[in-house]
């Protein structure tokens, strides 16, 4: 089971290492991790996507709550949040393939942000599933490099993970 945790922490040096250390120490696997400051400069948000069964998630939430600079931990409910990750993909692209790749980018609503005689670079900001689709579609052309951020997520509707 994959789950997404939205964690508010005090914006201090060393907090991220406390959290990532806890994952490795207790044998929890992280699929992705993203950190950024919130509207309050004293508070950062860590979004973690991880895998595990119900026991693991529950333990993880409890252990995270024990970390003193952790202010709040919320498990986002499947289907009730919007998630995004940002990806930059450099694809092998001789002139003969350029129009095909541009077409693919158009279908997927990805943006072409750079090009060279033998490559193009696409920028894409979407949920993980759509990111995967784009990668699958571009793979036959030859992917030179992928750079992607961790997933960030926000509740749908009026609810918010705030202090």
């Amino acid at each position, binding site marked *: 089971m994959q789950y997404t945790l939205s964690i508010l922490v*005090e914006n201090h040096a*060393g907090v991220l290492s406390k959290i990532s250390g806890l994952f490795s120490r207790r044998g929890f696997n992280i699929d992705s991790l993203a950190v950024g400051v919130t509207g309050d400069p004293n508070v950062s948000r860590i979004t973690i996507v991880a895998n595990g069964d119900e026991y693991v998630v529950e333990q993880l939430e*409890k*252990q995270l*709550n*024990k970390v*003193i600079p*952790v202010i*709040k931990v919320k498990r986002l409910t499947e289907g009730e949040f919007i998630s995004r990750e940002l990806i930059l993909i450099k694809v092998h692209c001789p002139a003969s393939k350029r129009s095909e790749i541009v077409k693919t980018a158009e279908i997927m609503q990805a943006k072409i942000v750079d090009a060279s005689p033998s490559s193009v670079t696409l920028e894409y900001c979407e949920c993980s599933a759509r990111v995967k689709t784009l990668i699958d579609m571009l793979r036959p052309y030859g992917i030179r490099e992928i750079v992607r951020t961790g997933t960030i997520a926000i509740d749908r509707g009026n609810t918010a993970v705030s202090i």
Partner: protein
Amino acid sequence: MISGAEIMVKCLEAEGVTVVFGYPGATICPFYDKLYDSDIEHVLVRQEQNAAHAASGYSRCSNKPGVCVATSGPGATNLITGIATAYADSVPLVAITGQVRSDLLGRDVFQEADITGACEPFVKHSYIVKDTADLPRVFKEAFHIASTGRKGPVLIDIPMDIQENEIESFTYPDSVNIIGYKPNTKGHAIQVKRAVEAIRKSRRPVIVSGGGVLLSGVKPKFQAFADMTGIPVISTMMGIGVMPSEHELYLGMLGTHGKTVANRALHDADLVIVCGARLGDRAVAAPHQMSENNTVIHIDIDPAEIGKNVKTEIPIVGDMKNVMNMLIDSIGDYKVPVQWQETVKTWKKDFLRVPPVFEGYVEPRTLVAHLSAMLRSKAILVADVGQNQIWCANNFRIREGRFLTTGGMGTMGYSIPAAVGAKLARPTRDVVVVCGDGSFQMSMNELATIAGHSLAIKIIIMRNHRLGMVRELQDKNYDCRHSATILEGDPDFLKIAEAYGIDHAEANSNAEAEEIIKGMVKSDKPFILVCNVYPDTPSI
């Protein structure tokens, strides 16, 4: 103007600290210089690990956080085992380490070690102080965090320049405001109600008490609850002492090395009330099976403990003190069915074993069983780790005193330094160490601390020339191949005692040992008794 070092001392004074355990070095010198002018007593240990153990023993006997101090680099890294031991046993400690100047941090200079990083898995929280003005807040928070919620060690790492810098004035904060730290102590009323209903319905209930009962200071209330209801009590190793060993409802320690009656009662129970225990693998070997045939109520201050090792039907998060009060108020006239009481009583008698005597040797289990009667009722027994720990856990008849050992981490060498802390916390009580010849040699350097402070600690060494517990494991699981478990080259412990100016004697029978013990407890000086134990004496 006031320096960081002076502020550190004033913070300790403001927290009511009267004794600290430590070992100086260059980067903690500014603090030591100011400590020199203070009324706080400093106990110079002979290795930093023992400063942490001593602070732990002090804390467990004084119910205040223990304080230990070390310098940067190796001083700090030596503390780690002691800090990890306190963490595993939920003992409140404040560990203070010196650190290289803040402008040199990260450059791998002389005696620099990332101690906050290294201790991360073993501390409740840690600080590296970057501004002298933060010191009062950091100390206030450290003591608060260490001694509230699930107790544990907190580390404060202070670069030398932060100790030297001066600020305008010192004020110690009255309160703390840590946004992410609000332990829930109250106990959920609905869960307590469910617990009461489950207890009232139960036919064969048992209580499993852990160290949490002692840490929350609820011993009398706890005992009252057991007495009111007649529910038999089993303890984990850390829970030993929650009630007198001879109490009719007390069945002893559970687990791999525990009493048969305790394990049997746990196995047959239809309701298990777990109080402040984490139920590690030594307590319950197959915890996932435990709740198959019974209902589990788990009371703990730490929500992460509930459901971690044992499946729990009724979780109650809260301080044992509050929860126990709520249970007593609402349990009504419930009494355990007579049949269960009788069954347990019969088992208690049936499973009683008298250890065989080997001519020319001291029988350690019998000696420990007789020890309590030779001590005053509030005696503190400090057991080390290994066979000696199991002999003590199962046989010492605790009355109103304490049983100290490290049940969580199982750190050899704990007993002597912990006894130093215990004796300083409770100078008028008998403090007796029982250790093996292996564990004695892990901290015998602390005999200097004992001699230097004239602490009347009585040390009983059970000498079998072996690492007895590992050897037992080798006999059982490794085809009797005794790899590295025979202690060769041991010194004459009596001559060691002599060298430290400590009174000493040797015993080769229980009669001899008991005669010596009766004499040694009368003296106000330290004493070392070496008991020669038959090498194949088992743990249980």
